[in-house]
């Protein structure tokens, strides 16, 4: 057995002073199993040691919140006794090393977090970020990640209803794979991870434990170097078939009354699941590792405790219910083993072959885990660009539009979502490619909308504004499908927190998220943090991904974004000032990467959104689409392409030049389609509510036209927009 010393602790990712703290707490040197347990619990991924003090500031309360952060997932009320359990989680580091398995097990892990709470998963989403399209690894990583997400989700039979794909060179060495799941549960049948009662049997169910994924959580807490390929063995291997069986078996067991608490074995496997359950219940736990079902021979206590083999759960049962539970797992051909019991010792005690191999007071691992107040720097708002007439002199609107519609971050992503089963379960009423995915709450008139958003460019330019913006964008996506925004989950992807600049980006993005979610009553109920997205000193742009959900009380009132009928009017809600800094137009057409992101005005944001919902409730809106990346003309084009209808755009009023007007990315805006007979009424309502709006155009023929400056057929723009990703992937 390895001798435990400072160097071995450092090899486990612990810092010198952290190792000293362990020895001081224990008043002795830990043995190798104990060292492994400490390193797993104290790494950034499990302990949130750099982020904890800042996450406390998040806005997490609201009447709709049943369970906020701190559980396997968040839970919100959607009325009539129904609740939605949801969460987003990162699987970035493993996906870069082994894209298929990394992404697949990311999806598997987040689904387990949701069904652990008693909810049947009803929708999956994802947010994936890749390096530059010219980078040699991008294609293969994209292909592998998409196949992995599909491979897992399709097999389980949960529809993947929405997502987001971005390309930026800052992800060249660190891609992001964030997976989100929504589940449906009866409000009175939610299961939690808090154990209760002494001498209750601790049950292991699911797959057998193997040597895969050992130290996965520590790997996820380290920066990458040239030798990253050597880390392949730390990536877990997924088996969606077993997960499907586990899902059905757990839900079957949950229909009864035998479970006290349940927790999936995710990051740091048996270690974190057993410790979390005991810690929350203020109990001790005793486990006989000889009884853990193992896939490989001669596994040591150290390996069993740190394995991240997938598709496993830990359950604390009511005493005497073992046989009843075992029958269910036998039916589904899954392993079932009583491996220990809860105790009053408040220690974790591990036995192996009749010998005690570890004993650690649980509060050393949980409450006493290190917490850092990292230094951070505040970002300054960059100086605005002052574009002059000369900058636009040689530009033509149609050329600009074509370039923007084939920009990797705008072009159609059907190549991706056609590989995801998005219709299984028979309740998907809005497919990927719209403002948000929408699924019906099975057997009711209700529907739930969900979307994932990120805006790394804005967050990079000014983290505080960027943080606010992502929350607002998510809110707008809910409004655009006619859903009342309910709550969000956040996946906070950042660089190295030990660097002041990166830490500052984190702190300020969190501040921005908090400010917007508080103002909009759009609380954060779950999430995770992924730091150390850095390779050889190069960190990613700050990328908080926000997964939002919203509720439609009548699914028949859902709003979509394709243009409906010729002769209808288009209005734009919200003011257009022509903010080009940090826009796709500035980057792609003017090659300018400077300046501040568009400003967020939370008051207008809320007013504009509520006015849209109000109009929807009065049945006055035919179509709605929020204006985001690429500005008005991009938004019109997408609405046109989806509906195969053109738009005659009215002359712009005011002083903004046409490029700023059409491509500026001012916030808080929506384009809505109104029947002529409703126009007067809509205008009256908007004026009464003091909502800024402009008449944008009229739905007409199969071309988008703007005076003599623009005449472009839908077929032409569609061709480039639809083909880009396909062609990129086959080249």
């Amino acid at each position, binding site marked *: 057995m390895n001798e435990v010393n400072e160097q071995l602790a450092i090899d486990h990712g612990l810092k010198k002073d952290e190792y000293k703290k362990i020895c001081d707490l224990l008043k002795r040197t830990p043995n190798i199993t104990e060292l492994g347990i400490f390193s797993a619990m104290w790494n950034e991924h499990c302990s949130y040691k750099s982020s904890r003090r800042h996450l406390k500031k998040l806005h997490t309360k609201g009447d709709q919140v049943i369970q906020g952060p701190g559980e396997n997932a968040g839970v919100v009320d959607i009325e009539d006794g129904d609740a939605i359990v949801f969460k987003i989680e990162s699987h970035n580091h493993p996906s870069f090393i082994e894209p298929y398995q990394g992404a697949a097990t990311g999806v598997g892990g987040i689904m387990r977090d949701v069904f652990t709470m008693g909810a049947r998963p009803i929708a999956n989403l994802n947010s994936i970020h890749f390096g530059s399209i010219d980078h040699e690894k991008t294609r293969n990583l994209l292909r592998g990640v998409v196949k992995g997400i599909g491979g897992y989700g399709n*097999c389980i039979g949960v529809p993947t209803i929405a997502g987001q794909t971005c390309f930026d060179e800052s992800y060249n060495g660190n891609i992001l794979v964030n997976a989100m799941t929504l589940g449906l549960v009866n409000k009175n049948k939610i299961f939690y991870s808090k154990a209760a009662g002494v001498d209750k049997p601790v049950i292991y169910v699911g797959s057998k434990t193997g040597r895969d994924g050992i130290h996965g959580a520590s790997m996820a807490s380290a920066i990458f170097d040239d030798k990253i390929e050597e880390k392949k063995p730390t990536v877990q291997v997924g088996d969606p078939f077993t997960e499907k069986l586990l899902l059905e078996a757990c839900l079957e067991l949950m229909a009864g009354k035998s479970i006290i608490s349940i927790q999936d074995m995710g990051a740091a496997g048996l270690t974190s699941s057993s410790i979390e359950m005991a810690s929350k219940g203020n109990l001790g736990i005793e486990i006989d590792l000889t009884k853990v079902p193992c896939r490989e021979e001669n596994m040591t206590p150290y390996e069993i405790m740190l394995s991240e083999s997938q598709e496993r759960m830990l359950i604390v049962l009511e005493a005497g219910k073992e046989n009843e539970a075992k029958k269910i797992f036998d039916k589904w051909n899954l392993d079932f083993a009583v491996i220990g019991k809860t105790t009053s010792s408040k220690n974790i005690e591990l036995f192996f072959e009749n010998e005690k191999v570890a004993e650690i007071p649980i509060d050393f691992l949980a409450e006493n885990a290190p917490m850092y107040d990292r230094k951070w720097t505040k970002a300054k708002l960059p100086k605005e660009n002052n574009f002059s007439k000369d900058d636009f002199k040689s530009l033509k609107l149609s050329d600009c539009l074509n370039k923007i519609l084939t920009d990797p971050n705008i072009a159609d992503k059907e190549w991706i979502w056609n590989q995801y089963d998005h219709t299984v379960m*028979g309740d998907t009423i809005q497919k990927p490619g719209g403002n948000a995915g929408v699924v019906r709450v099975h057997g009711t008139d209700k529907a739930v909308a969900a979307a994932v958003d990120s805006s790394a460019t804005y967050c990079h330019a000014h983290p505080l504004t960027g943080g606010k913006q992502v929350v607002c964008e998510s809110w707008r996506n809910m409004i655009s499908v006619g859903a009342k925004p309910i709550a969000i989950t956040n996946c906070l992807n950042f660089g190295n927190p030990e660097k002041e600049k990166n830490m500052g980006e984190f702190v300020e993005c969190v501040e921005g998220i908090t400010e917007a979610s508080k103002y909009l009553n759009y609380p954060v109920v779950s999430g995770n943090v992924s730091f150390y997205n850095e390779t050889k000193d190069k960190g990613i742009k700050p990328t908080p991904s926000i997964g939002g959900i919203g509720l439609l009380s009548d699914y028949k009132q859902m709003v979509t974004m394709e243009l409906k009928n010729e002769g209808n009017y288009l209005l734009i809600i919200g003011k257009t000032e022509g903010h080009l800094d940090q826009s796709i137009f500035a980057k792609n057409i003017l090659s300018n990467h400077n300046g501040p992101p568009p400003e967020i005005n939370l008051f207008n944001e809320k007013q504009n959104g509520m006015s849209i919902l109000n109009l929807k409730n009065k049945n006055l809106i035919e179509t709605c689409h929020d204006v985001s990346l690429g500005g008005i003309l991009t938004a019109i084009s997408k609405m046109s392409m989806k509906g195969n209808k053109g738009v005659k755009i009215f002359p712009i009023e005011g002083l903004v030049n046409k490029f700023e007007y059409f491509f500026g990315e001012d916030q808080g805006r929506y384009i809505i389609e109104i029947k002529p007979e409703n126009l007067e009424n809509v205008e009256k309502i908007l004026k009464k509510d003091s909502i800024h709006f402009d008449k944008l155009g009229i739905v007409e023929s199969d071309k988008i036209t703007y005076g003599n400056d623009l005449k472009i057929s839908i077929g032409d723009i569609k061709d480039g927009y639809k083909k880009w990703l396909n062609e990129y992937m086959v080249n």
Partner: protein
Amino acid sequence: MKSSVIIFPGSNCDRDMDVALKKFGFENQMVWHNDAEIPKSDLIVLPGGFSYGDYLRCGSIAGKSRIIKSVVDFAKSGGLVLGICNGFQILTETGLLPGILQQNKYLNFICKNVFVKIKNKENKYFKNIKKEILELHIAHNEGNYFCSKDELNSIEDNEQIAVTYCDDKGNDDEYNNPNGAIKNIAGIFNKDKNILGMMPHPERMIDPFLSGEDGSLFFENLIGNV
């Protein structure tokens, strides 16, 4: 009318099929793969999904499961057996239908709406459907139908091709073939036309708010003919 949907470990369209059958008037029951017998039924459905994780070959392990003997007996006595997607794969694995389903030509899972042309209406599945072309939905990784030349001749001679992939005008050529299937085959019958296997999922097309409504025509017609 009584129907039975068989649930294999890994089936995932079982509930969707149950919903669809009940919506159109079937009295449906769910049957576990490890049961020995199927309760009295007018129709047996093998639903889509990933039975036994698609391990070994799609549908192969399900093709050897305990319940299958009853399915085969029922089919051989002339009972109606419908296999959708993974169910189609299972039917070929049991030998109830000829040919095999290979991985899609472009090696990707495909989930999208497609058009199919009804090639034979002289059977209970399509008899009174007025349309010639249906818009249905596919979601599969192994839907690339293949069989030997002799088998194909026999399939064609016996008019066993049920539906072929096509465009909205009914052109069932190579440009409208999503997965590389031989002769654009999306579904086939046995010789007696009581067994139908097809890749498209009619159960996902039973509501204007879903992908479409042509699946409704399929089930309405089916219950009318059972």
